[in-house]
């Protein structure tokens, strides 16, 4: 018999962890002599109070959905892909190469190829550590960290070299052709007569992220391959007895993971910047770890957690303007405490809840 009902595991525990994280973060705000209630209300308002702000929230949430799904798929195969940052960065090169290769007539034609390009580059950047893990027994956490730094150096090299816009002072590529412009939410809703902020960066990639979430759910829980991935994740030994190849699962899970992380550059590079810039990932690869942990590695949980982290990110920017005594890096503190409570201190949160349910059950019988 389970120690607690399923709803407690998937809803109650993450909520308790979130509350604990917010309380600890609140104490940090108190410690620097500021008002945590005011801070949180500014953040919530700053994330949701206008369509412009919602547009930013959704834009960040889109990034976190991609990176959260990437981490989750690897987690299901019992791998910790900490390299989303590098995979996303390199995928930007793939997207840029595809979009700069032709004068694309329309985004509907450009998008599938950009997805292929970005996905392929992200997948390759994840496949090398996967191969080294599967064949050479190198720890994937370390290799993916190393690949983050190698990717950063590579981006600097490419954007100061062959991809550099000769007419620009900074390290960036030339602008993509106008035909590759992805419709923003404003442009998608305008024909329906619904008003939405023009300046918000959220674009059609948000729908792509939702579709990817569905795809991951379908893959993991409705296909033979997904079953093999989860079986391998639960017990590599039992899985190998059942004829599941460890090499194959490691490679496939990481390739999917890298390709998902790569979709971030559809949102940022193709959708928002419309050119390749150097530091466009901005830590989203690491936030994906928090999103996957908070979302319990399930696509629905990841969508909700990504929305929450999108609100945090956008709220943090507003916090900086409205309440300049608190730095926007307060968001990092909140993210850090969420990772701590949902990831590393899970057992501490879980144990008392299990005890309460055990006592309730005794009371019933």
């Amino acid at each position, binding site marked *: 018999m389970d120690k607690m009902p399923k709803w407690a595991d998937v809803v109650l525990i993450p909520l308790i962890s979130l509350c604990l994280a917010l309380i600890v973060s609140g104490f*940090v705000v108190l410690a620097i002599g500021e008002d945590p209630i005011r801070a949180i209300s500014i953040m919530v308002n700053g994330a949701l109070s206008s369509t412009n702000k919602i547009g930013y929230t959704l834009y960040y949430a889109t990034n976190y959905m991609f990176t959260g799904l990437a981490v989750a798929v690897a987690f299901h195969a019992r791998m910790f892909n900490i390299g989303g940052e590098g995979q996303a960065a390199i995928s930007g090169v793939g997207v840029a190469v595809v979009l700069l290769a032709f004068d694309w007539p329309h985004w509907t034609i450009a998008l599938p190829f950009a997805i292929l390009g970005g996905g392929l580059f992200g997948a390759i950047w994840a496949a090398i550590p996967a191969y080294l893990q599967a064949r050479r027994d190198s720890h994937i956490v*370390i290799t993916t960290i190393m690949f983050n730094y*190698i990717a950063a*150096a590579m981006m600097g090299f490419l954007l100061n070299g062959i991809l550099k816009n000769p007419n620009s002072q900074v390290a960036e590529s030339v602008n993509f052709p106008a035909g590759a412009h992805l419709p923003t939410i404003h442009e998608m809703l305008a024909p329906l007569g619904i008003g939405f902020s023009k300046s918000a960066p959220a674009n059609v990639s948000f729908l792509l992220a939702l579709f990817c979430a569905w795809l991951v759910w379908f893959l993991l829980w409705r296909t033979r391959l997904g079953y093999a991935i989860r079986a391998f994740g639960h017990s590599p030994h039992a899985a190998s007895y059942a004829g599941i190849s460890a090499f194959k699962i490691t490679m496939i899970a990481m390739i999917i993971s890298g390709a998902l992380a790569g979709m971030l550059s559809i949102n940022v590079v193709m959708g928002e910047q419309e050119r390749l810039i150097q530091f466009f990932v901005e830590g989203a690869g690491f936030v994906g*770890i928090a999103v996957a942990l908070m979302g319990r590695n399930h696509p629905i949980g990841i969508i909700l957690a990504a929305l929450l982290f999108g609100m945090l990110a956008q709220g943090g920017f507003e916090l900086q303007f409205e309440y300049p005594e608190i*730095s926007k890096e307060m968001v*990092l503190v909140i993210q*850090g405490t969420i990772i701590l409570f949902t990831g*590393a201190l899970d*057992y501490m949160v879980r144990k008392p809840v299990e005890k309460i349910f055990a006592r309730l059950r005794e009371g019933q019988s």
Partner: protein
Amino acid sequence: MDFAHAFLQIIIAMDMTIRLSVVLLFACLAGLYSERAGIFDIGLEGKLLISAFFSASFSYETGNVWLGLLAGVGASMVFALIHGIASITYRGNQLIAGVALNFLASGLTIVIGLAWFKEGGQSPALPQSSRFHELTLPFADTLRDIPLFGPLYADVISGQKPLVYIAFLLIPFTWWLLFRTRFGLRLRAVGENPASVDTAGVSVIRYRYAAVMIAGVLCGLGGAYLATSQASAFGREMSSGRGFIALAALIFAKWRPWYALMSCLLFGFLEAVSNLYPNIDVFGIFEIPVQFTQALPYILTVVILAGFVGKAVAPRAGGEPYVKER
């Protein structure tokens, strides 16, 4: 280029290599203790950063660099304690705990720094009394005129800051502690086969906590060096990945103290080269870009990890929480 000039260049590069490898040495040894006891530590970066912040802030406020050092070490130990509670007591994922610490350090240093100094998350520049100063070893000036050895002694070996000597002395000390004492034997056993140590009546938990707290002290020294010796103020994200280079150096060193000295010097040298000679022209044929020199520590580590050049084997029980058999 004449000989004297080339020699001067070498002296400058060697001096810079030593200065830049100190932070790596502290963090690398921190990782060595922790991982030898079976606790993976990717929170080295965060501990360096939080220590750099508190050591700079406290030495600025008190005007005493040693009090600053103490504050930095204390902050780093608090982080180490969180890592221990999460990954030893509550048997959480050690890697995730490390990631959380890195997030916390990045956030806390800037949030507290902004509230404290109102300078956008940095600390003010440290005055003379709040920084470490070079120590001149005996006879440095008299020996300077001896060819080759003289400048080497006077400019590379002498004239470094106190923490530099501490870092280099820690190497033989660590070797002795880990490989010549009972404490060291048990600590290594806890990382290889905790069940056997437990059977012998030694507390796995206690040894793992000891290792994690030692790592906290060492990262604290490294962070303090960064802010009060290598630089003279705290700057946002000033650890800038050094905790991860140290992790790479640790693997490159195959979790051994003397090898750690070599790998930290090598990676420090690569950083010195990328600072001194951004783009290296190879006989006019092609140019090695600065990004390649910067990425080389990571590339070398991947090569070592992949076992193409020697094999790096991690402590066997690393990453696994220890659950007592019942």
